[in-house]
């Protein structure tokens, strides 16, 4: 499979995530779109790692090929921590303003 197919797929998913962030007003769905963007980047990173595994450069040392997948693993770790804190912030916001509409937070006062 050509690497361009993976680049275009990841770009499409990333752009759908961006459109979701711009279009929706529900804070939870915006957060989910951010997760989708993270996953698109993860997919591209794994595809590049497998592209790298085919080149002669990494034949000598197999560790190089799996470096990108280690990075994806760490991105997942950070995403899990980020989701727990982010959802706590959204629950806090819901408790204060009784809505998840992000437009209610467009001013710092009150």
């Amino acid at each position, binding site marked *: 499979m050509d690497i361009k197919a993976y680049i275009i797929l990841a770009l499409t998913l990333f752009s759908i995530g961006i459109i979701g962030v711009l279009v929706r007003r529900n804070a939870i769905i915006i957060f989910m779109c951010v997760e989708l963007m993270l996953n698109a980047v993860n997919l591209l990173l794994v*595809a590049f790692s497998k592209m790298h595994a*085919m080149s002669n450069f990494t034949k000598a040392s197999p560790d190089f090929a799996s470096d990108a997948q280690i990075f994806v693993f760490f991105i997942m770790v950070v995403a*899990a921590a980020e989701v727990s804190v982010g959802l706590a912030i959204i629950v806090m916001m819901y408790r204060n303003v009784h809505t998840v509409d992000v437009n209610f937070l467009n001013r710092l006062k009150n």
Partner: protein
Amino acid sequence: MNLTSIIFLLLSLMAVGSSLMMISSKSPVHSVLWLIVVFFAISGHYILLNAQFLAIVNIIVYAGAIMVLFLFVVMLMNLNAETEPIKNYRLQLVGIVAGGTLLLIIIYAVMKIDVENLVEMKVGDAGLIKNLGMNLFKNYVLPFEISSVLFLSAMIGAVVIGKKDELSK
């Protein structure tokens, strides 16, 4: 067209279609369920790339833990299609045009470059658990240990943020 290309196309269509359904469905619960379908499609892509460890971790962590947390919060707040805030139609159109333009421009730029590199499908041992584990515990031990501190701080942070504020009473 061989079997690998057909599976790739099917998984890609599944991922893109489900993510479009995710941002377009009115009810937040449906959005969460469509996002789980997207994560399963991406896990299928990982399996197709022979990155088995990441496929399993993606299902366990994303589709399992994180999306259940999202679903839990959505149901805790009792959100449904009626409570959904509706954005101005014109602003929605602006968002779609902006995102679509970005997509078109980058796809055009990608088509212009002449990379003919192929991706290794179905074979290769870079994504096997043994090699990943050896690499993780040989070269990346320090980030691995630091991530435990990150988890501890995230846990404490979530508890502190979610706690009821007693000073305001």
